[in-house]
């Protein structure tokens, strides 16, 4: 049995949906009943809308749920074009996609600055407005009676035969899902999930949160537009009633049921909802109850929907058949896993930096220099300003005076993701690891902006894309070997214990060959053996040429590892020097164990702005 499973699994996964697609294309030749083909067409159209929801809600984690409004925009755009004489279907589809794109981006704007509720309510409100806007331009759109002046579609001047719409819908859907799949099964899909996990994390690996969110809204809007154009040409009639809350709730339910973080789940969810819609009219009465129940159950219990269940099931079988996890990839010949290829490190220079919060002078004229090829430790008691300095270097605060440069380039006023691209990488006190991605993928996400392959390359799987992918995988193997996690290449990263997740964060930070590596209390929570391993890895990173900055409480680790120690106290540099010097410095000891003067940084230092820091 399991042998059969193993054989089946050797087939690339995309083959199965492709077969389904083929079946759909071939179906009409079997002369099925009209209801069947209509059902399939409506399902495919709905699936397009749902897929948009999966991209913005599922993968990007944005509550941009106004797909129905974009669907309406697409339908009316196509309908109006047709009524005006432009019956070319391809033109209409493109225009509809564009219209939906514009609507999607505009309504996504609240989400750029604000949080999920505002975004959700704004996008939902738009659905409420559809009938009003249609009514506003009633002369052109036919108002609530509907647009009935749509002419039969043509392609390249040829009128389409009656049953050709089926093929058009099927082909558009197949192409779109192939695009969708290619996008999410690439580094772009991982990037979306990184954003979903934490915008702070996304910035720290160099991603522009603003652009990534916008891209999510845009890609999530386009298929809804296509769906609208197809609907308009299927029925040659568009009415605002088709774009109601009932539909919006159904779309959301379909997404959740099928699994929001999935590609084909959209098709499954759409077929269930469409199937339900098509039942007797008495079902229509129950429809809302079912949709609501799907949302409830999906939100509470069935996280991941049917797709999630399927994935878990497949993993179990894979494990039982011994084909997963795959054995550690063979190392490149001649490579020594214990050393890292040289990294061009850069010095981090902080000059006379001061920062005040309201009345509190958190940092007063701090200067320090972290050299490449050395470990510089930053230590200090509560209220010393360590956290503030860390946040300043990463770009979450702006300094009041002074300069901070990385390898000579000033970071003044740069946003966090710019600073990351300048070569500053960091780990977090609480590891930020998105769920549902493998260890290798986490590391690859670190390289997202240092090696580029655009969306188009991803969709077409161009040679450039494949090259970048090879480099991604090679680099992942390299750094994972260094930190000792190579054997966990395929494992779901979020399930690892703390010590390994810490190491994974270090690996991710290394993926882009940073000039400066900031380790934020990397030893906290680790047992002695793990701290030892961490120290070994840090030494190798230092030897490779990186400038390592260690923000630590673990005094023993600092003394044994650091080349240079900077002690902060009350917002200023109290002492700096070699471990031996600091260890015997009585002032340092007294500072830690004495009374801290008032007027320092906000007292809940441990839970400062960067939201993921754990409170002490």
């Amino acid at each position, binding site marked *: 049995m399991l042998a059969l499973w193993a054989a089946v699994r050797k087939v690339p996964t995309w083959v199965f949906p492709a077969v389904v697609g083929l079946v759909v294309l071939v179906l009409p030749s079997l002369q099925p009943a009209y209801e069947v083909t209509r059902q399939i067409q409506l399902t495919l159209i709905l699936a397009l809308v749902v897929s948009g929801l999966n991209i913005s809600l599922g993968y990007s984690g944005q509550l941009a749920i106004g797909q129905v409004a974009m669907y309406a925009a697409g339908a009316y755009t196509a309908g109006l074009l047709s009524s005006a004489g432009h019956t070319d279907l391809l033109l209409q589809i493109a225009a509809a996609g564009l219209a939906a794109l514009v609507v999607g981006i505009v309504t996504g704007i609240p989400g750029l600055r604000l949080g999920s509720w505002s975004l959700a309510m704004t996008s939902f409100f738009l659905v409420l407005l559809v009938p009003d806007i249609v009514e506003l331009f009633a002369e052109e759109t036919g108002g609530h009676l509907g647009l009935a002046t749509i002419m039969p579609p043509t392609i390249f001047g040829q009128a389409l035969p009656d049953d050709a719409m089926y093929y058009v819908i099927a082909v558009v859907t197949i192409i779109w899902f192939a695009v969708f799949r290619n996008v999410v099964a690439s580094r772009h899909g991982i990037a979306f999930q990184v954003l979903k996990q934490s915008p702070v994390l996304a910035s720290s690996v160099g991603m522009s949160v603003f652009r990534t969110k916008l891209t999510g809204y845009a890609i999530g809007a386009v298929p809804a537009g296509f769906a609208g154009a197809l609907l308009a040409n299927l029925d040659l009639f568009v009415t605002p009633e088709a774009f109601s809350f009932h539909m919006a709730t159904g779309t959301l339910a379909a997404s959740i049921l099928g699994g929001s973080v999935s590609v084909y789940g959209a098709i499954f969810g759409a077929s269930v909802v469409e199937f339900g819609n098509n039942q007797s009219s008495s079902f229509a009465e129950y429809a809302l109850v079912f949709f609501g129940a799907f949302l409830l159950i999906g939100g509470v219990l069935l996280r991941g929907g049917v797709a999630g269940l399927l994935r878990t099931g497949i993993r179990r079988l894979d494990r039982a058949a011994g084909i997963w996890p795959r054995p550690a990839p063979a190392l490149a010949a001649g490579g020594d896993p214990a050393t890292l290829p040289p990294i061009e490190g850069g010095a981090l220079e902080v000059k006379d930096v001061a920062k005040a919060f309201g009345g509190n002078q958190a940092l007063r004229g701090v200067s320090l220099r972290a050299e490449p090829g050395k470990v510089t430790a930053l230590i200090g*008691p*509560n*209220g010393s300003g360590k956290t503030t300095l860390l946040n300043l270097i990463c770009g979450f605060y702006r300094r009041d005076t002074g300069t901070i440069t990385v390898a000579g380039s000033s970071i003044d006023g740069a946003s966090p993701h710019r600073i990351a691209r300048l070569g500053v990488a960091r780990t977090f006190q*609480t590891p930020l690891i998105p769920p549902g991605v493998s260890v290798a993928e986490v590391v690859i996400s670190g390289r997202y902006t240092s090696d580029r392959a655009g969306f188009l390359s991803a969709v077409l799987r161009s040679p450039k894309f494949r090259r970048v992918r090879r480099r991604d995988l090679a680099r992942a193997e390299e750094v994972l070997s260094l930190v000792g996690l190579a054997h966990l290449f395929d494992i779901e990263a979020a399930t690892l*214990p*703390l010590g390994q997740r810490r190491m994974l964060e270090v690996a991710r930070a290394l993926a882009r060959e940073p000039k400066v590596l900031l380790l934020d*209390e990397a030893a*906290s*929570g680790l*047992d002695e053996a793990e701290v030892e391993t961490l120290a070994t890895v840090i030494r190798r990173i230092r030897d490779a040429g990186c400038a390592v900055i260690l923000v630590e*409480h*673990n*005094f*023993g680790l600092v003394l044994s590892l650091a080349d240079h120690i900077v002690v902060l106290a009350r917002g200023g540099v109290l002492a700096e020097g070699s471990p031996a010097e600091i*260890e015997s410095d009585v002032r340092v*000891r*007294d500072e*830690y*164990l*004495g*009374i*801290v*003067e*008032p007027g*320092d940084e906000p*007292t*809940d230092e441990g839970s400062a702005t960067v939201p993921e820091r*754990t409170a*002490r």
Partner: protein
Amino acid sequence: MTPLLDVRGLATGYGDIRVVWDVSFQVWPGKVTALLGRNGSGKTTSLRAVAGLNPVQGGQIEYDGRRIDRVAAHKRVKAGISYVQEGKRVFRQQSVEDNLRLGGYTLGVRRSALDADIDRVYELFPILEEKRRHPAGSLSGGQQQMLAIGQAIMARPRLLMLDEPSGGLAPSIVAEVMSRVSMLKESGLAILLVEQAVEAAVDVADHVTVLDIGKVTLSSAVGEISDLERLKDVCMGRVAAIEES
């Protein structure tokens, strides 16, 4: 004398970040036990476990002869454990007096019946009476610290846990706060004092336990500590005190 609080072999942390590995200490009525060590050593985490905010992942916590590992945090307050967190976590938008009333939440009486208890707090910290109607957020750091302690006392605790009451305060204010702690000790409260400021703590403590990276490195009655400098070295984690003696 049997301790009111007996913590043995405690292991705890945040989620799967284990910060405290094996910590033991006791607190007796009418006495102050000081928990010392640098930041990151696990002092606050240990207090949080006693208060019920962090789960007990190993060892046990015995209060008044009963295991309380699984008792919900808010119920421990009613049982007599009051915890003053570090960072002066009072309710900033509400008045000083309302903050104190909230301290008496577990007494289960009407708002007006708390007046006597509130007056007692005002006796201990007169400055609070002056500012009774001001929002707590407008008080200075030292006053907020006193308010936080006052809140904790309102619940008529038997065990009072203070987390770095000296934090962010000028030395003179610290002395004032510590003198109140002495007074409270005299009234029979068992007090667990977590501090980084070694000298201030030793002045008022009867017993000292030093933590380093989640383990105990020294546990001794204050009277037996002769060398303050050595104690400080132990707190910094430089000296392995247990082996030395």
